[in-house]
């Protein structure tokens, strides 16, 4: 049987729910994983004890885990992580860590896995224009896309053991620059509403922001919007030269659906498109397509959602 290890996904000092999806991925490889929780304070690992389908929880405790440093994290995790196939989330930080860990162990890494079948792993390539299925001989580190695998159960009570570890930190954080708004970043959000050139001007993004705040969503943008308007920063850009996102829900407003935009969002679980042009390519990828101007559709969307959320 293949031994598997899950590295818990830590976001803002807590075990992120996507960790339960990583456990399902490990189960698909045929085993109950040990879940390693990188933490500065071992009580954080209690957040993983409820997951079912695991062999146990290992709190890897070190000051290294206070700020992210790829070298320090990889060293400290490597020291305490059992041998086997190691599974991480495919978030930007965890992909970085996955590559470090694999290199440290002299094994290979397979990123962005969206399917596991008979031990073979499938990931999108060419920005999702094709899929690649690979087989492993020996151990590897595997990162798994969020919102693809079902979550394992959360009514368990696994045993948590604590082990101290350490690693040499190479970089030093000088300052954090918090975003002006406390809205989520597109890379972190489970729901994203994005605007394109069809929004007409940057002030009109306020309509998207209002809906985002109703839903607890992030606001994204197409490259045309980012390139045309200084007010729309590149950090909002979704696509080939922006961020790759996998939210549960992606709402594209006034975005045509160019191949480079699709590259960043086509693996979203549900896609809603609002566009005045019935022939816009985005509609071929939409679960729900509304042919209308945003001026017409957004106020109705906003009021319906507000009523639902109230």
């Amino acid at each position, binding site marked *: 049987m293949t031994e598997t290890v899950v590295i818990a996904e830590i976001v*803002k000092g807590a075990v992120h729910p996507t960790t339960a999806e990583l456990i399902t991925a490990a189960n698909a490889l045929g085993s109950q994983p040990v879940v390693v929780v990188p933490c500065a304070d071992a009580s954080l690992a209690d957040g993983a004890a409820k997951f079912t389908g695991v062999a146990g929880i290992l709190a890897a405790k070190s000051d290294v885990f206070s700020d992210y440093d*790829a*070298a320090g994290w*990889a060293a400290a995790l490597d020291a305490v992580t059992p041998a086997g196939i190691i599974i991480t989330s495919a978030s*930007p930080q965890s992909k*970085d860590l996955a*590559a*470090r860990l694999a*290199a440290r162990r002299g*094994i*290979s*890494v*397979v*990123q*962005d896995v969206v399917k596991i079948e008979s031990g*073979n792993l499938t990931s999108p*390539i*060419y*920005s*999702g224009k*094709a*899929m*690649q*299925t*690979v*087989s*492993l001989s*020996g151990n590897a580190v595997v990162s798994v896309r969020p919102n693809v695998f079902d979550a394992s159960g959360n009514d368990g009570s696994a045993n948590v053991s604590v082990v101290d570890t350490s690693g040499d930190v*190479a*970089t*030093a*954080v*000088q*300052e954090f*620059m*918090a975003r002006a708004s*406390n809205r989520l*970043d597109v*890379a*972190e959000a489970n729901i994203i509403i994005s605007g394109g050139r069809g929004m007409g001007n940057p002030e009109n993004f306020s309509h998207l922001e209002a809906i985002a705040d109703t839903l607890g969503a992030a606001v994204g943008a197409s490259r045309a919007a980012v390139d045309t308007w200084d007010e729309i920063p*590149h*950090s909002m850009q979704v696509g080939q*030269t922006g961020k790759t996102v996998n939210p549960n*829900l992606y709402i594209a407003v006034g975005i045509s659906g160019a*191949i480079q935009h699709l590259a960043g969002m086509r693996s979203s679980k*549900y896609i809603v498109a*609002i566009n005045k042009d*019935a022939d816009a390519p985005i509609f071929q*990828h939409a*679960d*729900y*397509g*509304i*042919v*209308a101007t945003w001026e017409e*559709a957004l106020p*109705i*969307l906003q009021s*319906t959602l507000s009523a*639902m959320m109230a």
Partner: protein
Amino acid sequence: MANIIVLVKQVPDTNARIVLSGERVDLSAVKKVMSPYDEFAVETALQHREASGGEVTAITVGAAGADKVLKDAKAIGVDHIVRIDCDDNLDSNALQSMLASVVSSLEADVVYCGKSAADTGAGSTGPGLAERLGWASVSNTISVAFGDQLSVITPSSGGNARVNVPLPAVISCDKGDIKVRKPNVKGIMQAKRAQVDVQSVEVPASTISIVTHSMPPAKPAGKSYEGGAAAAEVAQLLRDEANVI
């Protein structure tokens, strides 16, 4: 004076249609370009040279056809171009091992690369290479300032972080706010004459093998509506049918 390396990769143009022939992608008819993020890495490497003096070496791994991406880098302004000769489909372990042996032999101070290549999208090469070399690394940087150490800006939960990076280090570049320079006529002429330094290094066996390539599963046709009033129904369906809000 800094000894600067930039890693570049040739990939299909992002507009290209990807087709299969049997169970493998067939790229024979596809135009190849420098991976978009590598353009930011090249620009950052050139800015580093301008700030501190030194030389920039562009490295790619591939067969002779990949010389074109090195010539493109040369036309933009790098000093030296190196191709690590290799025909095979390498896994990350094999690829990074080859790069690590060449980068060590060049005694570099810093390696820049794109945050991920447009073909695999993996983003493993920068951090993996750094680990093999025992160097610091930061990925997804949107700004780099040069000095005895680098000061980079990279996304962090809730915003960005400014991070000091001791050299030697590997920096994987996201787009950020820099404008990439384009080749000029003189650069293009120099690139034509430039000699590619072809190196052969030992390759460890790959432990990851490609089983098959396939087209993405077709998405079932969605529901479509005319007119903005439908937004109310869609909102309901997002809750009751899709269960996403």
